[in-house]
């Protein structure tokens, strides 16, 4: 198990996520330059990480960060004559930015929402959307994002720089989409949050000494989105999905930090309050009567959460929910999951047929091969199962999942 995060780390993380997005949002609005605004806020976070552990967190950390970011912006702008006008704005009043000052809060909601939509603009590569959202909205530093996504800091820094340059050069607007654009753009934002969540959730327990928990931050971002854009059924669906999954966290890894799969989990470790909270959010979503993929996946997670034992799982309900998901969009990964559920209703042979049909489309997906391995084991085809598991191991990047595969192979 990774070392536990210190009280200071958690407190700093909490401040960063409350303040970073607000501050960046306000600065982008005032300066009209995403790249510069995002950079100076990041500089102020890095300065805080140096100073706060020794000096303690200041009484008004938002104001501290704002002052630091503002000074840094003034420094940078002084070097370039073309920005005289912007410089005057910053030098005039320390409260021009609004952040940290109550009178500026009115525009805060709008600023952060605009920021989220800019970071998750479809003209940016999705991996860059994820990185930018974490940095600009949730106040992650580049090394933290690099560690979370298992790439080098240099690679991650490059990815972020390139994306920010594109925002400025291609004139990606700093604006909340309107009208018929909303649905499509919101879908992109949710995809980013879900990808982020999965990355954090899957590697929980395996990541050593992470100061921040990507899964928790994704849930926080989901809730922020819900505050800024209330009553969006799929936003609620994703929040419920994340909550219901997180509720099972304590049971997902053993003391050695190894993955424990659903059938073997100690269900008394599941967080019943979190399950209840997730179910309530899902009910709120259902009242809006517009089903979508996140709500359906949350409903599947809820069926699992409600089962007292693995044997009590209502598989026919789960298969029905997968069918509903497939009607929304025919997706091979959903088909794969449906096949797993089906194996509990109709036996491994029936499911294996479906999984084999997916072998071409999902040939590069490690879970196809590990699922095949499980099913082949159940019908006694040990050697074929071993081959499938070896293929899964070749394709799998996630350390916790790799370790699980290795354990099964060594049995």
């Amino acid at each position, binding site marked *: 198990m990774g070392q536990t995060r210190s009280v200071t780390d958690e407190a700093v993380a909490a401040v960063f996520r409350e303040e970073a997005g607000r501050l960046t949002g306000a600065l982008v609005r005032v300066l009209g330059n995403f790249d510069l605004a995002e950079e100076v806020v990041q500089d102020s976070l890095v300065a805080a990480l140096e100073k706060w552990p020794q000096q303690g967190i200041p009484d008004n950390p938002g104001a501290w960060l704002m002052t630091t970011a503002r000074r840094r912006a003034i420094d940078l702008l002084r070097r370039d004559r073309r920005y005289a006008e912007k410089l005057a704005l910053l030098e005039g009043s320390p409260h021009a930015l609004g952040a940290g000052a109550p009178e500026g809060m009115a525009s805060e909601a709008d600023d952060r929402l605009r920021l989220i939509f800019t970071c998750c*603009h479809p*003209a940016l590569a999705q991996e860059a959307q994820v990185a930018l959202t974490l940095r600009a909205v949730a106040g992650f530093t580049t090394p933290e994002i690099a560690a979370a996504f298992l790439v080098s800091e240099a690679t991650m820094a490059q990815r972020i720089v390139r994306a920010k340059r594109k925002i400025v050069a*291609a*004139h*990606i*607007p700093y604006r909340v*989409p309107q009208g018929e654009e909303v649905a499509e753009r919101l879908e992109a934002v949710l995809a980013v949050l879900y990808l982020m969540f999965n990355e954090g959730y899957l590697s929980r327990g395996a990541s050593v000494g992470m100061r921040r928990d990507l899964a928790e931050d994704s849930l926080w971002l989901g809730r922020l989105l819900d505050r800024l854009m209330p009553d969006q059924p799929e936003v609620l669906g994703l929040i419920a999905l994340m909550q219901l999954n997180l509720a099972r966290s304590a049971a997902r890894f053993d003391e050695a930090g190894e993955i424990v799969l659903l059938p073997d989990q100690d269900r008394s470790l599941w967080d019943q309050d979190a399950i209840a909270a997730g179910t309530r959010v899902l009910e709120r979503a259902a009242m809006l009567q517009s089903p979508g993929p996140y709500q359906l996946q949350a409903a599947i997670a809820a069926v699992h959460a409600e089962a007292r034992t693995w044997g009590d799982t209502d598989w026919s309900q789960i298969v029905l929910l997968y069918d509903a998901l497939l009607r929304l969009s025919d997706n091979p990964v959903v088909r794969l999951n449906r096949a797993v559920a089906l194996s509990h209703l109709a036996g491994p042979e029936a499911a294996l047929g479906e999984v084999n049909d997916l072998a071409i489309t999902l040939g590069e997906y490690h879970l196809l091969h590990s699922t095949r391995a499980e099913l082949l084991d159940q019908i006694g085809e040990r050697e074929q199962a071993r081959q499938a598991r070896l293929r899964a191991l070749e394709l799998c990047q996630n350390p916790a999942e790799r370790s699980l595969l290795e354990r099964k192979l060594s049995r």
Partner: protein
Amino acid sequence: MKYVLLFGGTMEGADQLPEEHRAAAMADYEKSGQWFEKYTRSGKILSGEELRGPTTATTVSRKNGKVTVTDGPFIESKEVIGGFAVIDVADLDEAIAMAKEWPGTVEIRPVIDHSQDAAR
């Protein structure tokens, strides 16, 4: 903010397509004509041209100081650029909205603004 829209596809060889494909190509061609008309009238298009096909292309390249003239386009790819439009719009979202109405693939490239260069 100026952008160049690069349109994929060409009408070259369309006359040799099987009947139903030719009809679809003609319908798209007509739509692209209407698109040009609409946005030229609204002032969004500053200029634009349809290009002859890649078999008519000539490439002049330079390698180690030596200039060579060869037949064909310089980008080796399945996609060919069939035309372009220079547009002037508010931001990338407006350019994307226009590109979505084009009956085919479009690459959007922002134009570098050199208008301030002389003043510096």
